[in-house]
């Protein structure tokens, strides 16, 4: 679909913007960036926990998206496609930094029977009464307290919606490790968020 001379980009759908961008319309692409830049940056920030790196990787993701735009067939939403690109860049960066495999206290606990030992009943509603903005902020903090290995699995499963098998493939670990990391991460998150509840009641 050729881009018309002057479009009302802000009111166009993502699909239209993508099609015009595929024809080389940088204004349409800029509008896509403006629309989704926070989400893409947030995903990078949650993974990397470093603002400069997250900023750089999110921008690199947009450049890669521009270069590969012809490959986007619309099988998924544009944001899903974009988040996959930025997540892949983050995983590559983490591998380069050799930080994913660094043993943290979390991983040591997991390997020494953490799943078995640390599974009391999760508080069914650890954040009752908390406002959503505050809740999101606290969840971000809790994610920041997980090891990178555990956080990566949580992000890929809970935010990206990937199945165990796909996570195992993308991170380069076994499905059993995916399951135990996810279990331990959830347990830890529940504990951290329960702490918030106690803090608020004091």
């Amino acid at each position, binding site marked *: 679909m050729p881009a018309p001379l002057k479009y009302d980009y802000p009111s166009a759908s993502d699909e239209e913007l993508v099609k015009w961008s595929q024809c080389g319309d940088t204004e349409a692409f800029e509008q896509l960036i403006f629309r989704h830049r926070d989400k893409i940056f947030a995903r990078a920030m*949650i993974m990397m926990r470093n603002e400069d790196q997250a900023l750089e990787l999110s921008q690199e993701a*947009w450049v890669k998206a521009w270069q590969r735009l012809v490959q986007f067939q619309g099988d998924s939403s544009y944001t899903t496609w974009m988040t996959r690109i930025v997540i892949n860049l983050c995983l590559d960066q983490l591998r380069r930094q050799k930080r994913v495999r660094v043993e943290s206290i979390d991983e040591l606990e997991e390997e020494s029977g953490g799943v*078995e030992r640390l599974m009391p*009943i999760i508080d069914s509603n*650890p954040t009752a009464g908390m406002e959503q903005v505050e809740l*999101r902020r606290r969840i971000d903090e809790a994610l920041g307290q997980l090891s990178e290995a555990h956080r990566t699995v*949580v992000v890929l499963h809970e935010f990206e919606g990937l199945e165990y098998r796909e996570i195992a493939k993308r991170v380069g670990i076994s499905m059993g490790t995916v399951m*135990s990391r996810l*279990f331990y991460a959830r347990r830890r998150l529940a504990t951290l968020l329960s702490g918030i509840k106690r803090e608020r009641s004091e």
Partner: protein
Amino acid sequence: MKTSDLKLELQAYVDGELSPDRHHRVESLLASDSQAREWVEGLRQISLLVRTNEPDLKVPTSREFYWSQIKRQMDQARASNEIRPVSTALNWFRWLVPAVGVAAVMVVVSIRSDRDEALLASTFDSMQTDSSAVVFRSESDGVTIHWID
């Protein structure tokens, strides 16, 4: 089944990762085990909580600045793509020059080698009439010495 395996099985149930057969077995267990039901409920709650409250983080720079940096990288990528055919040709030419050089050296060496062999043969021819030669060969050292007088 060990307790830890059971917990991972329950998690897989919550995540919809079980085969129909295993899914059915877990449901049977849940019908009779209140602790397993509580675990499943706890896992569901924390999963839902995280999934529906993804941290809402904002790009820390202005729209214009963010876009300008991306645009610059896009332009650089485009420029490097545009010069790629030229650089490919240069790459080919870059390999051609040393290849021609090596070929030229081989030709020279070959010519000189032929000439040296001819010269050596003529030297031996001229020496044969009024000269003697002693050959010493050491098998253990793998050395052969030719003494020409």
